[in-house]
């Protein structure tokens, strides 16, 4: 009985050691992967920051204004002015014999959200 107990204990120690060894290596692998991912995130962040800075630089109001001036012939862009706000009575009423039939209900808002 005693010898059986000794053998069993020795086997258990060997088994647990093997398990701990495996877990240790798994942890190391996970940590390595985390580090790689952190580095990748860091690089992606810095790339994103650079891209955002470039986007902001390309969208700076001075440049957009110059582009609008250069392309005035094609696009005809002008600064927003009060005259450009339309009124509902400026829109022609649809003809009575219109073939267009509304089957779905449509949500209509009387006020216009500008932003």
């Amino acid at each position, binding site marked *: 009985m005693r010898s059986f107990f000794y053998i069993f204990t020795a086997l258990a120690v060997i088994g647990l050691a093997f398990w701990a060894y495996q877990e240790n290596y798994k942890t190391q692998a996970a940590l390595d992967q985390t580090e790689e991912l952190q580095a990748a995130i860091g690089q992606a*962040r*810095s790339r994103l920051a650079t891209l955002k*800075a470039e986007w902001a*630089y390309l969208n700076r109001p001075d440049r957009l204004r110059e582009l609008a001036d250069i392309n005035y012939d094609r696009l005809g862009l002008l600064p*927003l002015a*009060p005259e450009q706000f339309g009124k509902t009575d400026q829109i022609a009423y649809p003809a009575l014999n219109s073939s267009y039939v509304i089957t779905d209900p449509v949500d209509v808002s009387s006020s216009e959200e*500008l932003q």
Partner: protein
Amino acid sequence: MIRTPLRPLARILDARSKGENPDAIERENIRLRHEEMRDRARQRAEGRLLVLGLFFFCAFSAVGMRMAALSATEPTEPRASAAGAAIMAQRADIVDRQGRILATNLETYALYAQPTEMIDPEHSATELARIFPELDRESLLKDFTGKRKFLWIRKKLSPEQKQAVHDIGDPGLMFGPREMRLYPNGHLAAHVLGGAGFGREGVHAAEVIGVAGVERQFNELLRDPANEGKALQLSLDLSVQAAAERVLSGGMKLMNAKGAAAILMDVHSGEILSLVSLPDFDPNDRPRPPTQGHAADSPLFNRAVQGVYELGSTFKIFAAAQAMELGLANPSTIVDIRGPLRWGKFKIRDFHNYGKELTLTKIIVKSSNIGTARVAQQIGVDRQKDFLRSLGLFEATPVELTEAGGGKPLLPKNWSELSTMTISYGHGLSATPMHLAAAYAAIANGGTKVEPTLLKRDKAQTGPRVMSAQTARAARMMLRKVVSEGTASFGEVPGYAVGGKTGTADKPKENGGGYYDDRVIATFASMFPAYDPQYVLVVTLDEPSENSGDKPRRTAGWTAVPVAGEMIRRIAPLLGLRPEIEPDTLADITLTSN
């Protein structure tokens, strides 16, 4: 173990036969046995002490070795930290109210040299001078061949420059990573942002610290890692700011002014949507403070919060509002305006002669100094002081700029009745345009004090009440009439019902001794739409002169007002205000009961 008998029979018998005491033998044997026991106990104790000593030696050497190892190795971050180890820029971005970037960071490199490791200093110096025209070949060569072991060459490099330096191929030229502050919009909102520079510098990194504006005001917050890189959101609106700067700089040139400032403020929340001071600068390349001349003429000077000026007739509405609040007058009260009004040796005159008497509304509309001074006389010194203090005109504005603390109003040392009379039309008390905007916002929002802020707020401020809603409404109607039929007629913008008050103040001479005849500060403080004000706009021009007529015109009505009108025309649509037909003024509804 065989115990030695204490009384061995042979020896006892032998001793008895010799007539000796046999007990002596027993005692001798007991002594020997005790000695033996003592020796054993000592040996055992010594053994235990040795083991214990060994144990302590091992324990202390383990601790000592661990300490030595910790102090001798490079520190590393714990690999298994669960915090996610966020990799962030060292300084948070600054964005406008819609999240558009106003200030961000860019990775770049600094260039330094270690002359001891250089192979061909002559070639390197020649090439560096070719790449960077501002560097001098001779002084570089002197540094490279002299005793110096380390020198910085440039703080920032563009990628192209870095490649060019790389191509020189000298191992003594090295790059240190840097984060630099970038303001992608250039001059835009320069005075608000301020600028940033390098603090402590090392080879591997350098601190970026704010030197002015919000960058300096919120330096700690922007650098706080606990903030996790969350951007600082300002109340400014990029497109509104751009339009305001464009129109104001055009207006400044047209009116031949040497400087200009404009503030656009939400009257309910106190948010500043646009703050312009011209001339301005590029915060990416912030100029050095001037060493000669007036600080106020430098582009670094923020006229909107640092420029303390006498703001002229724009103050008249405060006297009128207070008179109405105190019940001394109502908009149709008749006031005697025969001039000149004397007080001691001092005479108060009007710009034109407006007749003998005018109603309070007309006094504001025509901008009569005499009429306002008479109203102020009725108000008295103490009550006027209290009212102006409640509007925030006695302290520096609380706006979040380091420069704002420098804009403390100049008050008369001895506040006499004459001071009360002159201050009622804006002379004798100097304040910044920001003070004026905050005070006008109190009239515009129905009578509660507003503190101007540069940070985005979600809801209206609930400041202390400084005047009743009725008084505020009556004051707004007066201001509307100033534009529709008075001195600010050029400020009329169809659909936006502008209301406001002009102010033209002579500039005091720098070294004392009276005022200039031909230099003025022209101010237009306005609100729109006057029947339900949302925004206050203050425009100030420094030394304007409108030269289209026979004589140069310098009054605000000819200079600041048209500029402000054009600004409102351009800005209001950007703010989402659609032009509307002004509602008719309704007769006051009186509650009656049967």
